[in-house]
């Protein structure tokens, strides 16, 4: 029952995050959804990732959102009509999820009783060390991209001085 509540709350938060008209509020709803996801992760037996999700997903990302919204400036909260007709959007999203569910859910594998003997650290640093190493590439690429996109350019500086 607890799980049901968590899931319902999580989906509710997510829905609010997507639906809300104010960006800051949406970011906060997203943080809420992220926190509840972290609880769900903990329930699924993944405490380490839950902690990371809590700090990164609910914390860092929210901070970044707030930063971005601050710099970009909140749009005036005019409710604009969706560019894709909303009913169509609902139908297609439901179809995609529904078909996926219809193919996957009835065949949901029975939970394996085997438990992995290895510790998280072992798996992370030994078995899947390549993924971890590649995160470095991802981070370098991301940092360079952000630097490149946000650097105050010469042209920009010129424009602002005018």
């Amino acid at each position, binding site marked *: 029952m607890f799980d049901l509540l968590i899931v319902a709350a999580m989906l509710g938060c997510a829905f609010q995050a997507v639906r809300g008209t104010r960006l800051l509020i949406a970011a906060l709803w997203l943080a809420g959804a992220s926190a509840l996801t972290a609880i769900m992760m903990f329930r699924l037996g993944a405490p380490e990732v839950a902690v990371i999700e809590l700090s990164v997903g609910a914390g860092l990302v929210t901070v970044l959102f707030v930063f971005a919204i601050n710099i970009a400036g909140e749009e005036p909260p005019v409710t604009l009509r969706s560019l*894709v007709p909303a009913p169509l*959007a609902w139908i*297609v*999203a439901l*179809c*995609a999820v529904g*078909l996926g569910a219809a*193919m996957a859910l009835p065949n949901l594998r029975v939970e394996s009783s085997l438990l992995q003997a290895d510790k998280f650290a072992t798996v992370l640093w030994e078995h899947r060390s390549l993924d971890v190493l590649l995160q470095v590439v991802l981070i370098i690429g991301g940092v360079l991209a952000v630097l490149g996109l946000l650097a105050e350019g010469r042209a920009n500086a010129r424009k602002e001085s005018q």
Partner: protein
Amino acid sequence: MPDISTLAILSIALPWAGAVLIWLVRDRQPQLQHALAVVFTLAGAAAALAMIPQRSEVNVLDFPLGSAFGQVTFLPDGLAVFLAVVATTIGCLAVVFSVDYMKGEKQLGRYYAYVLFFIGSMVGLVLSSNLLLIFVFWEITALCSYALISFYNDDPKAVTAGIEALIITQVGGIGLLAGALFLYAYQGNYDVPTFLAGADRLPPNVLALMAFGFLVAAAAKSAQFPFQTWLPDAMEAPTPVSALIHAATMVNAGVYLLARFYPAFEAVPNWKLAVVSVGAITALMAAVMALVSNDLKRVLAYSTVSQLGYMVYAIGAGGIFASQFHLLSHAVFKALLFLSAGAVIHAVHTRDMREMGGLGKQMPLVKVVMIIGGLALAGIPVLNGFWSKELVLEAGHEGGPLWAWLFMLVGAGLTALYTLRFLTMVFYGEPRSGQHVHDAGPAMKVALVPLALGTLTTWLLAGSFGHFLGKALPEGHDVESTGALLLQVATAPTTFVALAVVALGLAAWWQRARLAGLAHSLRGIGTMASNSFGFEAINRAVVSVTEASAESLRTTHNGVLNWNVMAILVGLVVVLAILALGGA
């Protein structure tokens, strides 16, 4: 003397090397470009001529290209060498003629590069015995011809005509492509002699698909019904050199293809009938169109289409020899006609025959040779056109249906009629253009005289030509001596019927005033003919439908991110649905 495979390579590679060199010389040295072009085409022609005594009935050369591409092999038998000689010598004449005609033109390098590249590829097309290579050369000739037609790039008409020619021949080329693919799928290689020797090993339906595919390809390349529209439009090319290449060289490729593969497809049900029908319809229809056109080059282009119809018809009726002999005659007299027409157009700076007239006095030599060519086209004895056309008609009488034969007879009469019409309009009557007319230059004359002599004499070669083609002709085709052949033609009843029809055609021209009423009633046909019997409209419709669908498709790309994501999701839903329904 180099051996045959070296010669084969040389006759392809020399013009190509010349093309590259001329391109590299750049347009600052036009004299050098002219000289290089003449030298390399002459060398190519020499190599092709040198193959004559060494021709071979089996493959020469064997160079692997890679797994799915087979070997480079050549089959320089009589048929192939004959056409290689035709291509190189006519190409050579075209180049010599260009020295005068293209003097002072810009982008000469591009022009000569295309012409020489074309000549080499045409030789490659007829010499190859790997069907893939045949297709490759086929496409290269199409590419060069497109480039030559739209040589005057600043003229939108020329560009459109070039692209039209390219697309139509390519669409037809799909027939050849499918044929080559079938051959590989069922025979495991592209070897033509193997295929010809045992075509019946292929499943009958596959063989039939190949046969009709080849017919489509040949019809497109040789401007036969229903693909005839591109050739007259191709006359936008530099006059008359590329007209010569199109009309006397490239279009032969389709006829060659049918002749080469005749032994394999002979037994395919209805194939011969289809070939005969295509030929007969084309011959008649193009003759009517030639009758109503006022553009000198277009008249000659339609007449080419019509004469090609005769060759295709002959193949369908089983007269391979007749078709190739007519090809020989036609190549000679049509080259003559085009070159003299080029000289005329060069002199008066227009292609409209209504603005010509009375040119005979200013250009006596051109007048004489053009009349010789015209009479050969009309089939007047004893010029070469007479003998070969009679052979075609005789073959058709024996091997084809009666209605087609009657078509061809009418076509022969019409040919005589339009020949007289254009000769009169150009050379006789009152001069209608006030312009100063200058006679043809020396290089032009050098090209004209041998062709006129050829028109007068090539029929004497009939017997040795038959012998020369040798095994390239289908089984049971006994080769006769010149004398026997000529006697056979001279005594055959069809000859007299045909001559009578031709005479009727000539008479109709003299009596045209009296026949005005009849002509008036036939005006409807004339209008239809000048509108190409609606085929131009079909082309236009295809183009506009394609463009309209492209335009409406463009509106679906509205650039909105939400819709783009929507497209991704729809793709996912469709694939999932297919799997859920099909996989469950």
